[in-house]
């Protein structure tokens, strides 16, 4: 049977099932196949909070959304065109996000009385009218998989487990994906158990063939490769990119990287990743708590390493006192905060941008530090390098504000040429710097960077003591002198405020926009997509995105003041807006959603149009 082939410019697919159904893996593989094909991609995993809930329940649903297109895209998509629902819970949990007309592929085998009851379905939605607006494809995924593997030497349980590969095969067929990488992947993954390789490959092929043969799937789709810059790409999540950025910072600075970390969602993966790179001299230590983690990192920095600590909001709160010490010691330190929804434990697996205030202000005394935020998964790589650059050059703690959305989302990344990465080499102090030629002044600053010398233990002749008490200018001796304190407080502030950072760039293709949308961090994608939408409707709008939150770009005030209105969308209650208002006295409009989810481009678009109407 030859099937009709339809061209699409973009598709959003969501794989949803029970935690045990392997949806993250399925989504990952589909993404990888899609990447091989050269589409632009953006993904959004969404897994249950913390622990595996009992099978078949709503809290146990795990999903993975992938958006791919033949042009460059900015978000994982607002609404799936296709939902793969491995059980009733997955259907129920995700239905509300589907636009009418979407395709729903359901695993009918799981629509048993018991499973339906577990999620409160009185009757099966497959049998009543509730799915009337959708294109439902009922598929007996489990039994067909088991059937396909009848001749294989695997247990029934293992056969059933392969149903995700059946689903993947079907979807790969539907969207004409190249599947070689998946077959290779299965060989690697089950290398120790060849019978499972065979079974999974068979399940995949059965799914593919099912699409090919069944009547239910009359159409096959194609999404052409996107026009992307030439080069080698890989698909990467924010946490992985951030980890690689830290490894790269070690290589480019020639310093050992020391990571002190205490596990916490959604930052733990950085610890996991970095602990694999010992051959780069990256030393990872799982500390007893967050305070020890940052303390150890600071101790390592004192010894001449690039000290790094990774955590999420609750951890940063605990580290505050030690970060304040790092401010006083003026040593390099990178603090990665992968933000999650707060306050307190909040919703650990959900995203939010509500730690900006804490990053900027959450320490006692005047304790200014640098703060930067990546805008996308692959940007985490460069943001990590930039954080390291600032920390090393200016001898200061830097907070890198990632969040769950960029950390776990993925996108294609054009691999950079290693030699093109910034040169981060630093010079340790090696000899006395006092006028007399014999004294060492640990707080004598470089007039340009205001950085103090980094004299590491082991350097003969530079023995000195530092600490958290106020220090006399130059000598670093303990000082209670009022004028000295005032001077040091202002100098520490100036040190940060005068770090040169690139000017902010404004994207305004029409050149006549009167409204500027300003964002920071992970909202870049949704804001960009919304602006595109607005422009497609013939309206003008400008977009600017902050990477450096402290210090801010020198031209920011001027840029802000050149627009009639400034809108600041944030996944918090307006923290950046507050800073912007205070610094520039600009009556910025704050648009906030604190839902644990990224903005949808559509909602943002509506909001922006509303604003444009009133200019």
């Amino acid at each position, binding site marked *: 049977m030859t099937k009709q082939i339809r061209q699409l410019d973009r598709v959003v697919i969501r794989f949803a099932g029970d935690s045990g159904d392997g949806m993250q893996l399925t989504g990952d593989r589909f993404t*990888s196949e899609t*990447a*091989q094909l*050269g589409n632009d991609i953006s993904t959004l995993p969404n897994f249950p909070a913390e622990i595996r809930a009992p099978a078949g329940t709503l809290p146990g649903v795990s999903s993975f959304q992938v958006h791919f297109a033949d042009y460059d895209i900015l978000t994982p998509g607002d609404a799936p065109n296709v939902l793969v629902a491995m059980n009733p819970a997955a259907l129920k949990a995700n239905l509300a996000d589907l636009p009418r007309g979407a395709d729903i592929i359901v695993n009918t085998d799981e629509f048993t009385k018991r499973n339906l009851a577990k999620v409160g379905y009185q009757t099966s939605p497959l049998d009543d009218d509730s799915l009337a607006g959708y294109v439902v494809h009922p598929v007996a995924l489990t039994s067909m998989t088991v059937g396909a593997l009848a001749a294989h030497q695997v247990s029934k349980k293992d056969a059933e487990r392969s149903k995700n590969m059946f689903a993947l095969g079907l979807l790969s067929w539907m969207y004409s994906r190249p599947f070689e990488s998946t077959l290779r*992947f299965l060989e690697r993954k089950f290398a120790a158990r060849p019978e499972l390789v065979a079974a999974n490959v068979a399940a995949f092929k059965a799914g593919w063939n099912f699409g090919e043969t069944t009547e239910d799937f009359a159409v096959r789709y194609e999404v052409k*490769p996107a026009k*992307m*810059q*030439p*080069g*080698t*790409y*890989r*698909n990467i999540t924010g946490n992985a990119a951030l980890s*690689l950025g830290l*490894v*790269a910072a*070690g*290589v480019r600075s*020639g310093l050992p990287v*020391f990571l002190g970390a205490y596990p916490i969602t959604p930052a733990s993966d950085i610890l996991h990743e970095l602990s694999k*790179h*010992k*051959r*780069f*001299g990256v*030393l990872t*230590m799982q*500390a*007893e708590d967050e*305070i*020890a983690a940052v*303390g*150890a*990192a*600071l*101790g*390592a920095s*004192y*010894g*001449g390493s690039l000290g790094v600590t990774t955590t999420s909001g609750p951890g940063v709160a605990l580290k505050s*006192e*030690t970060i304040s*010490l790092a401010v006083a*010691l003026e040593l390099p330190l990178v603090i990665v905060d992968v933000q999650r929804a707060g306050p307190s434990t909040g919703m650990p697996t959900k995203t939010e941008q509500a730690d900006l205030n804490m990053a900027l202000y959450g320490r006692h005394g005047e304790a200014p530090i640098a703060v930067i935020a990546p805008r996308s998964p692959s940007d985490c790589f460069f943001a990590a390098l930039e954080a390291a650059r600032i920390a090393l050059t200016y001898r200061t703690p830097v907070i890198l504000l990632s969040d769950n959305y960029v950390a776990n989302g993925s996108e294609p990344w054009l*691999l*950079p040429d*290693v030699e093109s990465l910034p040169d981060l080499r630093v010079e340790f102090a090696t000899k006395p710097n006092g006028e007399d030629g014999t004294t060492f002044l640990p707080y004598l600053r470089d007039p340009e960077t205001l950085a103090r010398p980094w004299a590491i*233990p*082991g350097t*003969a*002749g*530079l*023995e000195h*003591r*530092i*600490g*958290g008490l106020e220090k006399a200018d130059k000598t670093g*001796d*303990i000082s209670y002198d009022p004028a000295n304190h005032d001077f040091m407080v202002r100098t520490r502030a100036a040190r940060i405020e005068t770090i040169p950072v690139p000017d902010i760039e404004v994207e305004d293709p029409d050149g006549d926009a009167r409204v500027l949308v300003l964002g920071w961090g992970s909202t870049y994608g949704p804001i960009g997509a919304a602006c595109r939408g607005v422009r497609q409707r013939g309206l003008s709008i400008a977009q600017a995105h902050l990477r450096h939150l402290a210090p801010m770009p020198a031209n920011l005030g001027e840029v802000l003041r050149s627009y009639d209105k400034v809108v600041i969308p944030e996944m918090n209650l307006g923290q950046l807006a507050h800073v912007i208002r205070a610094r520039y006295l600009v009556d910025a409009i704050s648009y906030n959603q604190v839902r644990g989810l990224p903005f949808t481009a559509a909602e943002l678009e509506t909001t922006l149009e509303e604003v444009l109407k009133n200019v």
Partner: protein
Amino acid sequence: MSEPVAVKLTAKDFKSDQEVRWCPGCGDYAILAAIQQFMPELNIPRERTVFVSGIGCSSRFPYYMNTYGMHSIHGRAPAIATGLSVSRPDLSVWVVTGDGDALSIGGNHLIHALRRNVNLKILLFNNRIYGLTKGQYSPTSEVGKITKSTPAGSADAPFNPLSLALGAEASFVGRTIDSDRKHLQSVLRAAAEHEGSAFVEIYQNCNIFNDGAFDQLKDPSTRDDYLIRLEHGQPITFGADGRFCVVHPPGGFGLEVRDTSSVRPEEIVVHDATVTDPAYAFALSRLPGLDLRNTPIGVFRSVDRPSYDSVVQGQLAAAKATVTETPEQQLAGLLGSGDTWTIV
């Protein structure tokens, strides 16, 4: 571990230019002098020696040593020193801390450093009081202690720092006294030789807020009957003419003190700091009474187990051993690992 060097240093070389600012008469002076005199013996260059402290009177210590030093924040010295030590195995890292700093706010870092066996020499100046904040009770103050924060007497039992350290898997545990310079230095010597964490409790007099806390152990009229001087390989006897001894009674549940005359010589425990089972050192740590009678000093325990530093550095070395590429090449390889595709 640091290798010895040729230059011969003296106590003076270890004195920094900072004016010492403890109260006149404070036991910290004696400890400082003892340590400054002791350091040259190690033959470690000053620049490879680092003192890290927390906050407290005792924690001012690093400022007075002409080595590298960090006066950090309250309770966190073991954590900071861990990062330094494990990343810089060429350094000799010492932690100076107080009973509040180490056992109150810093308790967690201390027990974890000991468990990990980080290569730190941890000196706890125990004056059984908060000196710097002017006289509140500490986790080593005796029950019922009346202080500024406990006008009706403290309600909680103190830690026995050595028992706690042993419960936390410490591989080296010792105790000494500010006023006995020779003994102090002998314990430091053993600590410095130990690979891994060495935990040393130093009884220190705070003459302002807790004067005389250890007088029974210093007063010539009681000293000898109260102190048990542990010596490796020697039967444990003490008091005038060794009139008391320590035994491990077969029917009993720990160690006990007896009149030497009442026991057979072979019943007397022969001190062995290298016993693997910490139950022995723990039992020793329980001997002192509330009045400080039967207080052992010296090295309680000194057993070999790999330091955290050496295992971690070993893992790094093993991982690096196979590397043939430059770091840049390695990095390029890492970035391009996994599923990649090329657009031309």
